[in-house]
């Protein structure tokens, strides 16, 4: 059971008592709230006392009379505004002049309740305020959580870095204790797995370096006129040993130079990511086709594979940090889960688009469209 503190500021004891009585058993619920909200009523007969209570008790809602013995209600309102307190202020007043109403609204009064009010009027006004306040606080909380994404990223990262270390350490312990005897060949699988985890870790670190470069504010871009076809060729050469190992053929179907304004390093990261994925998630004897088109002012990079493909559902999570598609077909494939989120960030920097078409068991085609002129 949550409760909101309501401070009633009025020199008339009848109003204060009445409010207390009306709100005593009143509860508000809302479909989004998983609990009722009830009220704790605080009272102040003067503005001065109100300010004291506000500082001490931090009420959620203030019902504020303007006409008070010492300082006026509007001054209490100004105080709340100046302190940037997260309090909803409602003016209760019998003679609300237009001038006062305008000033109070400008100073952040949320509502006016004319005096005298019926219990029903007070309750319905408070119900609205409560819902508004609840939603506002929920939104604030979610924004704050948005700032936590960075922290979550680091948490997952440390998990991703720790997992291979644990795995390798585990194997080393088994070997250290000679649990499978003295013959080193008994440990072959464990050594292979350890090497595999180390190479996974290395590629994670490489990806992280790429990501840091992109994310460290304004990236240092070395924009120049570059031949995209040539860069695709460099990337292809880098990936070739891996492709041979996986028995996948890669074809660069565009031969002529295609020029664009870009940072060659970034274009290479794009190709490296796309080609390595196309090889990695392919089948034995599969192929990867690379096409580069230029029409009008757009460059289109296309990498198509004859691989395992993915479902619509899998596609939807593709570009998130550390998301890797997990299914029996990808079980033995390692990766950092960062490649495509890096790719997406680069493409966004160039104000480009990524399109993915995929059919399970037939293959996936990534199409990246970039503006040719980025000067």
């Amino acid at each position, binding site marked *: 059971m949550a409760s909101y503190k309501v401070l009633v500021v009025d020199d008339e004891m009848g109003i204060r008592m009445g409010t207390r009585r009306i709100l005593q058993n009143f509860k508000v619920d809302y479909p989004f709230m998983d609990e009722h909200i009830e009220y704790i009523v605080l009272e102040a007969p003067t503005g001065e006392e109100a300010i004291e209570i506000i500082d001490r008790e931090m009420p959620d809602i203030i019902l504020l009379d303007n006409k008070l013995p010492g300082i006026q209600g509007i001054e209490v309102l100004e105080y709340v505004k100046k302190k940037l307190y997260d309090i909803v202020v409602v003016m209760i007043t019998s003679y609300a002049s237009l001038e006062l109403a305008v000033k109070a609204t400008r100073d952040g009064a949320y509502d006016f309740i004319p005096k005298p009010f019926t219990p029903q009027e007070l309750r319905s006004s408070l119900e609205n305020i409560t819902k508004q306040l609840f939603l506002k606080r929920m939104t604030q909380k979610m924004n704050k959580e948005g700032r936590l994404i960075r922290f979550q990223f680091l*948490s997952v990262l440390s998990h991703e870095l720790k*997992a291979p270390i644990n795995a390798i350490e*585990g194997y080393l312990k088994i070997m250290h204790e000679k*649990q499978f005897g003295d013959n080193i060949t008994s440990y072959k699988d464990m050594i292979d*797995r350890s090497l595999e985890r180390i190479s996974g870790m290395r590629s994670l670190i490489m990806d992280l370096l790429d990501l840091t470069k992109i994310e460290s504010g304004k990236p240092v871009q070395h924009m120049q006129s570059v031949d995209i076809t040539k860069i695709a060729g460099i990337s292809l050469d880098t990936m070739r040993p891996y492709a041979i190992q996986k028995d996948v053929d890669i074809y660069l179907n565009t031969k002529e130079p295609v020029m664009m304004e870009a940072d060659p390093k970034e274009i290479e990261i794009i190709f490296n990511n796309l080609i390595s994925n196309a090889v990695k998630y392919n089948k034995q004897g599969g192929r990867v086709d690379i096409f580069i088109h230029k029409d009008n002012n757009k460059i289109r990079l296309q990498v198509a594979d004859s691989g395992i493909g993915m479902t619509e559902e899998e596609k939807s999570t593709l570009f998130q940090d550390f998301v890797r598609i997990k299914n029996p077909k990808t079980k*033995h494939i390692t990766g950092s889960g960062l490649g495509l989120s890096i790719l997406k960030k680069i493409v966004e920097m160039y104000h480009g688009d990524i399109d993915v078409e995929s059919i399970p068991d037939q293959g996936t085609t990534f199409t990246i469209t970039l503006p040719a002129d980025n000067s």
Partner: protein
Amino acid sequence: MKKTILIVDDDMDYLFQMKLKVEQFGFDTITADGQKEAESIIETVRPDLAILDLMMESDDSGFILAYKIKRMYPDVPIIIATAVTAETGITFDINTDENKQWIKADLFLDKGIRADQLQREINKLLKI
């Protein structure tokens, strides 16, 4: 008769190493590489104890699986072995009433736990 322990983890190396350890303790093992596979296993097999990873297909796979196992076999002790707590600073204390209601695990263990400690915890839960 040997007791059977179900081990579920999507990290194949961890799964292999855990299986090895548990078998050295003298138990039989069944392994699954994720929530889905584990769910189909428990349809037909009642393990004597389950050791689950937390983050598998989704971040809370371990919790969901624990819930499902407890629903089918309320008496099967469940250990959730995770590296999550240390890294995220999220600590799960199953000793508060509120958490007991939804976290259906008997014990949380850090993944880096030593073999002898693990054996002791398993024996305690199996009342050996």
